[in-house]
């Protein structure tokens, strides 16, 4: 951001050009139409608003033929009428083509957002600056476009008006340019200050907005009624208001003077000054023609407004540039875990091996995983157990290459997984996450995670829903598997409870047909019978497949070929259920805590541990 008050105009222009190029690629017509219509508009405004009077008055003074004068005036009006007709066409064109620009740009960003590694979403600074900001990019594109069109318009009108004024007396042009000089001089300071003001405002306003959300979101409604937390929320709102008021005090006056001096310059110095100068020249010096004096009086405010607006256009160029800079950084961001189309497709899994794998989340001191070594063979059923926060879910994220290890390697059939094409590698896995989410699209597409679907796909969806035990519920909707999830876009949309939504996300694995299945606490929201059934179906469907599952309910771990017990990011114990019980370690302890409550007679022993 720097302290110098000079704008890097080169960079500013580059950035604006970048956005204009995006618009051009999305729909060349929009840019061309904008250019053309603004040139015409400026000419029209000059002819009708300024030139017409000078022409008519001077022609009259020179004693030209009345008929000829009227003919020329008529021609100018004719042009104006034609321009208006053109405007109606232009409006229609623009309205119909604007969505193309939005779609082009937003899709570009969406693609990028889906490509960048997960860490980008979890790094608050990166997320706040880049990812979140791009949500409004399409609107920004139109801001850039409208600034560009103003620029074209003003260039043409300024040239025309400048010529008109110079033909009368050049000194007026200098006078009229004063506000522009002022604007350019303070532009950087004002923009930076404005930027700082807005940024700090946003930060100070965050609490206020949070409190508002708390009060209207349904999620919090129960707690708001059952506790007195509203008092805490009121205090936070008040703190936010106090901070914001302090900001108004700190920046408001400076902003006020910036704006006021500009106003004094353009509305008083230039306007009244030019009029007085013209009147002086005409009445006292008698060096100016009456007609020219009228033109000055009539046009001076237009001229100074035009020049003044040029300053604003430059300011906006700079303001847009700051924003586009972020956009470019995001679009140019080199994805760390990237899809390489030339890389070989991942082969069928034989073994999956973690070799000395350690991993720390950015900005966290303790490692989430430390020196983990394990090997999984095709067809094995692997259970991963351990306390909350022991690193189980992190392990899953590494396996799926949502992150790469900080140290060590993950090998597929002995080869580093980084060698394979990312999408093909991820396609090996069918995963149910702990924090599963459904999309507001059809149930079928939610299960297949793609679309549009063929007849075979639909049969697969039916099968998967049946397996995960939600088929009956789905068929109660009038559109069956075609029902849209959530009522967001369809009043007849399907609303699922937590357990039901989990079943839908489990169905994804049944439908996916992948060789490796990862289940991260897949049954937390299910009742015991449903859980039982789900596991039975899952293991039946996964016969011959590799299954890696995380579960807190150790009963489901007993069937595993091998159990890994994680503690503080390390593998603490491993082996089959029987082996682990024989070790009499942490696993045994855990097992008894759960199991003993089910066995009728040894409550006392459970308490002892």
């Amino acid at each position, binding site marked *: 951001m720097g302290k110098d008050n000079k704008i890097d105009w080169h960079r500013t222009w580059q950035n604006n050009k970048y956005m204009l190029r995006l618009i051009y690629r999305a729909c060349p017509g929009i840019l061309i139409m904008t250019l053309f219509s603004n040139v015409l508009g400026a000419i029209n405004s000059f002819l009708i608003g300024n030139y017409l009077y000078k022409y008519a008055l001077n022609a009259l003074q020179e004693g030209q033929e009345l008929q000829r004068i009227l003919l020329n005036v008529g021609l100018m009006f004719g042009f104006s009428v034609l321009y208006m007709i053109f405007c109606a066409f232009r409006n229609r064109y623009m309205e119909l083509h604007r969505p*193309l620009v939005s779609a082009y740009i937003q899709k570009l960003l969406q693609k990028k*957002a889906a490509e960048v590694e997960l860490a980008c979403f979890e790094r608050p600074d990166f997320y706040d600056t880049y990812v979140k900001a791009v949500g409004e990019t399409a609107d920004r594109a139109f801001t850039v476009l409208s600034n560009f069109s103003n620029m074209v318009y003003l260039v043409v009108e300024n040239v025309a008006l400048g010529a008109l004024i110079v033909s009368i007396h050049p000194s007026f042009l200098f006078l009229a340019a004063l506000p522009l000089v002022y604007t350019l001089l303070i532009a950087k300071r004002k923009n930076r200050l404005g930027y700082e003001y807005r940024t700090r405002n946003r930060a100070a306003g965050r609490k206020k907005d949070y409190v508002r959300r708390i*009060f209207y979101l349904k999620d919090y409604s129960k707690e708001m009624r059952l506790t007195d937390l509203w008092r805490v929320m009121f205090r936070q709102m008040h703190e936010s208001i106090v901070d914001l008021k302090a900001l108004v005090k700190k920046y408001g006056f400076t902003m006020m003077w910036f704006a006021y001096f500009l106003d004094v310059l353009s509305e008083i110095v230039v306007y009244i000054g030019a009029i007085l100068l013209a009147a002086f020249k005409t009445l006292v010096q008698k060096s100016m023609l009456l007609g020219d004096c009228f033109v000055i009086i009539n046009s001076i405010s237009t001229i100074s407004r035009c020049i003044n607006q040029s300053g604003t256009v430059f300011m906006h160029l700079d303001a847009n540039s700051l924003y586009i800079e972020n956009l470019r950084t995001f679009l140019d961001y080199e994805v760390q875990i990237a899809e390489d189309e030339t890389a070989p497709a991942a082969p069928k899994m034989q073994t999956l091996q973690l070799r000395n794998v350690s991993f720390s989340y950015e900005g966290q001191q303790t490692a989430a995983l430390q020196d983990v070594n394990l090997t999984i063979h095709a067809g094995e059923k692997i259970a991963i157990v*351990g306390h909350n926060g022991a690193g189980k879910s992190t392990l899953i994220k590494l396996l799926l290459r949502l992150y790469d290890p900080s140290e060590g390697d993950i090998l597929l059939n002995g080869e580093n997984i980084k060698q394979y094409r990312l999408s093909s590698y*991820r396609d090996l896995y069918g995963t149910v996450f702990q924090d599963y989410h459904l999309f507001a699209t059809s149930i079928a597409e939610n299960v297949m995670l793609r679309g549009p679907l063929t007849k075979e796909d639909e049969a697969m969806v039916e099968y998967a829903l049946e397996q995960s035990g939600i088929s009956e519920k789905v068929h109660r909707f009038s559109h069956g598997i075609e029902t849209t999830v959530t*009522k967001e*876009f369809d009043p007849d949309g399907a609303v699922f409870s937590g357990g039901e939504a989990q079943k839908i996300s489990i169905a994804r694995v049944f439908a996916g047909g992948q060789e490796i299945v990862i289940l991260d606490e897949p049954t937390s929201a299910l009742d015991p019978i449903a859980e039982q059934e789900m596991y039975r179906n899952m293991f039946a469907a996964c016969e011959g497949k590799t299954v890696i599952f995380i579960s807190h309910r150790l009963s489901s771990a007993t069937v595993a070929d091998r159990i890994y017990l994680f503690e503080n990011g390390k593998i603490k114990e491993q082996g089959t259920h029987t082996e682990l019980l024989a070790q009499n370690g942490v696993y045994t302890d855990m097992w008894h805590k759960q199991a003993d409550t*089910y066995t009728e007679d040894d409550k006392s022993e459970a308490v002892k541990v």
Partner: protein
Amino acid sequence: MSKRVEAVFNPQKHSPRRVIGNLWYMVKYTFRYAPGYIWVTLGEAFGRGLWHIFGILYTKYLFDAIEQGVDFTEILVISLLLAGYNGGFELFNKWRLNVYRPRAALELHEGMQSELYRKARSLDQSCYDDPEFYDDFIWAIRESDARVALIMENLSIFINRIFASAVLIVLLVSMDWIVALVLLFSVAMGLVVKFRTNKIRYEQSLELNPLNRKLSYIDRIFYMPDHAKELRQGKIAQRLREQYSETTDEKIKCLNKYAGKIFALSMFTMLFTTAVPYAGVTGYLIVRYLVDPTLSLGSFSASLNATFKLYWTIDEIGTYFTKFNEHSLYVEKFRRFVDYEPQIKGKITNIPPFESLTVQNLRFSYPFTKDQSAENAVLKQMNLEIKKGERIAFVGYNGAGKTTLIKLLMRLYDPTDGAILYNGQDVRELDPEAYRRHIGAVFQDYHVFAATLAENVMGDEVTEQDDEAVWAALRAASFAEKAETMPQGIHSPLTREFDRNGVGLSGGETQKVAIARTFAHPYDLIIMDEPSSALDPISEYLLNQSIMESAKDKTVIFISHRLSTTRMADRIYMFENGRVAECGSHDELMAQNGKYAEMYRTQAKKYQVS
């Protein structure tokens, strides 16, 4: 959906009287919370109006003065006077815009939002289930203060334009009444076209809104961290982008559908209310000036100036009618929310300690579900009784009605039929706030708030005297150990919502904090809905121990899917399909060999390996 919106938003529904009434209703809020704002706004309106008029008179004076060759000093003095007025007015205006208004807006925000939040808190839980009310409610609360500020700004400009155009009309009629007439006619026509266009635009927006919502939904999916993992699986990201294109196509199709009409109207406006009157009036004045030697240049130019200013002013006034109508529609939603009378109420505030809770022939359907029939009710013919000191477990399948019953016990809803009795008294006679002070509840969808840990636990502001209670509650929820490691102990801020050093909790930890809430107050009755669902086995075990320890002399109701935890209950209610299917102690139910026994064995079997 579109039908529903139409019912609320019919653009021609509001009579001028209603619009004025609604605007006044909102202005009153300004009077209440930022009265100075009104005077400053009015000051601006008249100050600017005067400036427009001075401008025209000044130009007329100048032209005439120069044509007649008056003394330059006179021009100088008058010009400087005008400059002085403008300089003073603009200083006031810039102060208003940059300093006064932001501050007044904040005062308005705090005053109005406090009032609204109190109201929001008093709404019935069922209001959140009524999509129509909820939409309005969100809108009312999200926009209210900005809307009042906007209304104030619009009113200011409106008053100033009315003032200016009144003076302009007088001016113009005195100079050239033909021009005035032509002008008024074209303005009137312009207004008609504008109303017509607005109506079409409105119809179009009804069709476009769902499409725009869909587009922004897809955008959101890509930028929100929530879906980030799933987007990296399969081809769903690609599919969503395709849908984005499809929706864009639909949007263009919809725009196309109205484009013809809008084009025709826009052409009409361009030609008959802009180009032709403009050319006509200017042409007429030029011809008149050329042929009529009595018309001074000053009058000519002043007429021209006044004409266009008036045209522009009245045209703008037209747009304000639409804006005010829109405001009025908003205000009605706002009033609907503010005037809402909570249904869950009761007069008795002096409530004795808990002795018993009786559910009598209870039937319940969520309000705003289509099917209100008795056979499809969420709870049907439910009867149960809970006495002081008992441990009660609710078990059953997903969707059997357990959580719903708890919502009724907490009076988040009232029964459709039947009653709930607290110490033999119908809970509907009790003041809900006072009633809830006797019962602590943790729901499955608990949240922590961006406040300190202690505040989250107490569910209120804290003083030093609360420290002990907070620690005790945290110990009961087996969270004390973690709290000790936090940088500022129990006064550490939770969530990174607006504090970078805020503590982010895992799912299990969040659940423990939620549980601690029920131990922070001396509740007689504690209700827990799946209190250990997010916990690992050891934590679950410790938690259960500690809950039972801390709740020794309290009455406890808990819902659990893990039947091992229900064994210690004095009585278990097995829910099925909105009814109590079985009821009794663990041993009794096992002896009955019914649904409960089946469920229990299913789970226990898996642990019998050792």
